[in-house]
């Protein structure tokens, strides 16, 4: 249960950062924190008590005591894609800074919200 609380804590912290900060870099950091929280949540769904990694490294390991491999397989690719998406967002932030001269989202004129 503590894993769920931690994972959703990370997601809510990221959401709060994205909603309240004005600096674009801080918003991207919030996005990254949310990403981590979602990955942690997916992994913790597949957990079983006293489970081992789903690898048959030695003969005679009981498959019943292994954790669920499916969420791990999803998270494995999601981490790398998260890196690429964050890099893309940072490059857009650099471009935005070069165009407007500021990273403060409330000072950008065309942006009204």
């Amino acid at each position, binding site marked *: 249960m503590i894993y769920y609380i931690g994972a*959703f804590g990370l997601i809510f912290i990221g959401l709060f950062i994205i*909603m309240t900060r004005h600096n674009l870099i801080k918003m991207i950091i919030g996005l990254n924190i949310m990403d981590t929280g979602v990955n942690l949540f997916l992994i913790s769904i597949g957990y079983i008590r006293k489970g081992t990694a*789903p690898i048959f*490294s030695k003969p005679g390991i009981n498959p019943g005591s292994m954790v669920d491999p499916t969420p791990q397989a999803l998270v494995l690719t999601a981490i*790398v894609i998260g890196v690429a998406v964050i890099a893309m967002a940072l490059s857009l932030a650099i471009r935005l800074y070069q165009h407007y001269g500021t990273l403060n989202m409330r000072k950008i004129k065309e942006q009204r919200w």
Partner: protein
Amino acid sequence: MRKFIGLILVGIVASGIVLSLFKIPFGTPKTKVGNYYLNKGIEQTGAVNIVTSVVLNYRGFDTLGEVIVLFIAALGLGMVTLTFKREKRKISPPSLILSVGSRFLFPFILLFGAYIFLHGHLSPGGGFQGGAIVASGFLLIYLSCKRTINKERFKLTESLAGLVFLIIGLIGVYFSGYFLFNFLPKGVANTLLSAGIIPIIYIAIGFKVGAELAGIISDLMEETRKEFKAQS
């Protein structure tokens, strides 16, 4: 004011999710799919690492989609960096420890990355992780000395690795009628030459992810590079 509203909104979402969260059991026995993969995984795919067999065999098509997402993100980043205005930035030159240490460590990092993606079907790791390790070696090179990577060759590596993945999938169609069918012999489990097409695809993914992430690094570090050359 803005913080207060944000806090209230997050609180509403959180209370809704937490109320439903208490109904999700934690640490209980697995789903049917997970049990099926664990019980049948070795005899059906030949890989002892069940996560790998899920990623590349049961859900191989899904992985192809994710590789394409990664490719599109890298492509978009390249397009955005093309429109950057090149302006001078002040960057301090690398210290002696960084430049010497990175030159010493670079081959070992490449070797470790290759080890990770070659043994993806036997031990924790695989193409995505190994590719990220290889790219971290290139990041170290970019941080330290005055070398750059040849972008054309990296793009070529990336495209060829993607093509290998697709062509192996299409050969599976030719042999059995299923995309990404495991047409090679499965071999003895828990040895390096086992699991049919899984190691081949993971090597291709390792090269592709490594080249892509190194390309992202070089796109973002290009300005720094010009500065170094002007100084030296």
